[in-house]
């Protein structure tokens, strides 16, 4: 057999060239959706507002991230109505998403505190 499953998985993982960033974006989306269901555009605005425009999440990475999370069952999409009466897709967190968020946040906090420690010492 010329190909193996392992090689396949490896190639799939390396093809997304910014795994850290992607994971971070997922974490941000999950965290923001935890408080209230939001549509795509409002999510970008809120990210910009909260991070004071430091993180400029563009639509090109946000929507694929949303679809991926929906595919994984971490968030759920439903149709709602905006304040001016437009039909809009609203995303909310699922139970699995909540669990994932807690785990990811834990990982992130340990990672960032380790990173901070390194940056301070050297």
């Amino acid at each position, binding site marked *: 057999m010329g190909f193996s499953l392992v090689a396949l998985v490896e190639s799939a993982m390396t093809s997304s060239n910014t795994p850290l960033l992607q994971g971070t974006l997922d974490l941000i989306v999950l965290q923001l959706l935890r408080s209230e269901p939001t549509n*795509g555009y409002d999510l970008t605005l809120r990210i910009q507002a909260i991070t004071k425009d430091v993180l400029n999440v*563009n639509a*090109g990475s946000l*929507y694929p991230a949303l679809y991926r999370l929906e595919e994984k*069952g971490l968030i759920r999409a439903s149709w709602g109505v905006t304040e001016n009466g437009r039909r809009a897709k609203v995303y909310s967190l699922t139970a699995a998403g909540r669990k994932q968020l807690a785990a990811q946040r834990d990982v992130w906090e340990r990672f960032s505190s380790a990173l901070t420690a390194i940056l301070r010492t050297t």
Partner: protein
Amino acid sequence: MLNRLFLWFRSIFLRARLEREMHEEIALHIEQATARYIDRGMSPADAAQAARREFGNFDFIEEDARDARGQRWIDAVRSDVRFALRHFRRTPLATVTMLLVLALGIGVNVALFTVFNSLWTLPGPGIPRDESLVRIRGIDVSERWGRLSSRALSYGEVLEYASQEQLFSAVAASTSEDALLATADPERPPLTASAAYVSDNYFDVLNVRPVLGRVWSATPLHADPTTVLTAVISYANWERVFDSAPDVIGRTFRVNDVPVTVVGVAPRGFRSSGDASSRYAVWLPLAAYPIVQRSELHVFTSPDSARFSAIAHLRPGVDTEQALPVVKAIAARADAARTPRVASRLRGGPMRWTATADVVPLLAHNQNPRDDSELKVIAAVMGALTLLILLITCANVSSLLVGLAVSRRREMAVRLSLGAARKRLIGQLLTESILLAFAAAALGVFVFWAVMRVLTTRFPDEMLDQLVVLDWRAALFTGGFAIVTGIIFGLSPALHATRLALAEVLKDAAAAVSGSRALLQRALVVVQIMLTQPLLIGIGALLLLSISDIRKLATSELDGRIVNMSFDPYIGVASDAEARSSMVRIHERLAALPGVAGAAAEGWVMSRSATPHPSDRHPASPLPDTIRVSGRMAAPGYLGLRDIRIIRGRDFLESEMDTIITSVIIGDDFARRLFGDADPIGRRLRFERDSFYMQIVGVADEDAMETLRLGAPSSYQPIIFWPINTAAIPGRIVVRTHGPAEPLLPHLRAAAAAAAPRIPLSAINTMQQSRESTRRSLLQGFAAIGAGGLLALFLSAIGLYAIVAFAVSQRTREIGIRTALGARRSQVVGLFFRSGVRLSVLGLILGLPLSLIALRMLREQTGMPPTNTPVVATCVAAGVLIVAGLATWLPARRAASVDPLTALRSE
């Protein structure tokens, strides 16, 4: 989990909607962004532009989003299919060849599955599928030596089952007999039909609705037979007896001379729940049985009379397992109630009774218990055979694909080097083969369907009407089978085609295909040729045999002046005496017709073993102690009528036609072989299970006897004659006319009908007509076998072609060098041609022992003289070589057209 499944389904089936929703979502995003920019004071146009710029490239984002949704593979499949179709268009000849070969391999498997699926999952022609329908089966009554077998219940048992309301919601009873059907129309001769006597709820329980009129509604089992009898007729009966008249309801006809009124016509194909012997069925109320069959009422009352079948509906929640103990208990009680004397007499007679009982789902395959076990064996054998055919076809197509892949090697190499994933290429190639398999399956199913249609319309009596149904199970099987087949024959070539040393291929210098693969392919072709040969030799020998058979079919100038008439003397008459006197009347009337030279009764033809008395046979007789003979019963005068001269002794006497017969007439040749030169008259022969010997009273011209045979003697089975045994009434009369008999047939028919209107004439043919139809069916049979052999040859030829074609394209470079170095074209062609022929010769030699075995079997089966076989074997070998040579020459010739410049360009 469920959620994932939902999303997965959504991504397949709701693709269009997902796309729409994605567009809508993005549009809203941009709209909202635009509105925000306007709020900040931009002009609407600038705001829209800024929003769009900020968003980025639509197509990229949408594509990424699709990826994220795991939806890309659909597009991949779609493009793979397009790719495959394009490829097929480029190589139409190869595609069509593979399609035909695969259609054969897949088609036979699908056909087999469909037939057995219908038998095992359908309740029978014309009956709607119903899981709760069961058959309650009682005593196993089978003919001791024959194949007849049935499961019967006494009427008392049926009533007991009907009272088991906690198990069965309804129980219907039926029993059937052959009966005589006659209409008032004098022009229409009476007809032997199957009369089924059924309980009033019979059609309700089976849920069979009439196409015309009504069927009885569910009333208690006993109906009042004193009023007019009503009948439901089968569709075939409606067509034949009533010419499909729309006003058939209310018309009267006679069943065994009892008038009945038509109240309904059963749907097309519905024959019965399993006990009808003929398509021309008529259903009568159960209570009519004693009247129409002229039997005593004890058929209903006596526990000794077991002739009923029962169909039942299980109550919801009850299964056959739960019903079985009750059924067994009731059957045991019924068996205990049987008069011991009757039971033992029946058990000693020609019918063997085995007390047993069970309850099984009402399915076509369990109509007859004996058929059931035979069907399983047939299914297993046929299944193995069809799978073998599939394997061979797959192997051949696989070889062809490997050969084709060579010409695409460059394409593959270029794509691989441009970064295409090997997995993706394999997927593409597999899509091709699966598509091919699907197309082949569709073709196979279509051909099967067409053949079934032709068969059912041309031979409605032989075929089970509408029993073969292409339902969802068959469709599912076909689809699954096609996918599996596609992977089986496509995977190996696909792996092979994509495993490439890129640099070398791009330089056109790839090494030859892996040695083991090539070896395997070659071995496969050799095996095919090996198997083809005995098949073809067998066919050739049979063909020769049939040609000589047809030549040997002794014809006589008398054939056109002999008419065989067959009657059903027992059907529908009150007594044996009536049948006997009717047959005598018919005989007299026929003999007295103008143009008729004479008439004589003829009995049945039966194959029996004969043993000469030990002290009578000649010690040097070449025949074994027991000889198989073809025995015929003949009335006095019969031999003279057929121009069979009595050489010694005498013809039978009228007085010898008795319930016990003791005299026999044999042929002169047979007599010589048994007794040498001694006088055969007075010597003794014993037949089969008889406890006494019969005496030879006459010796007749054996050559003349041969003209009685319709087929050729398949092995040496001498004809002998007995006087007619009057224990049974023979229904056959032979008439000899002065001139050609054919114009007289209508007169003969009319005379018979006038002499005995109640005796149906089941067949009337001149000897010439019978001979011709025998010959036709012989030829048809051999044509079918011949077609099978040619198909096998065709398959081997394709395998051979694939190998040589592959070798040629593999060695293009080598050919180029050879040609450049001065090899002549004929030398190059010869190189490949010889390698192909070598394989076929090897196959032929290896197949020789198999052929010898096949020939010996054939000789034993048919008594074929051995002199013809070397001729046949030589012919077959030559034929195989010619076809194999052609299959190798076609691709080998391509080697000659290789241009050395093109072939060596890459050097």
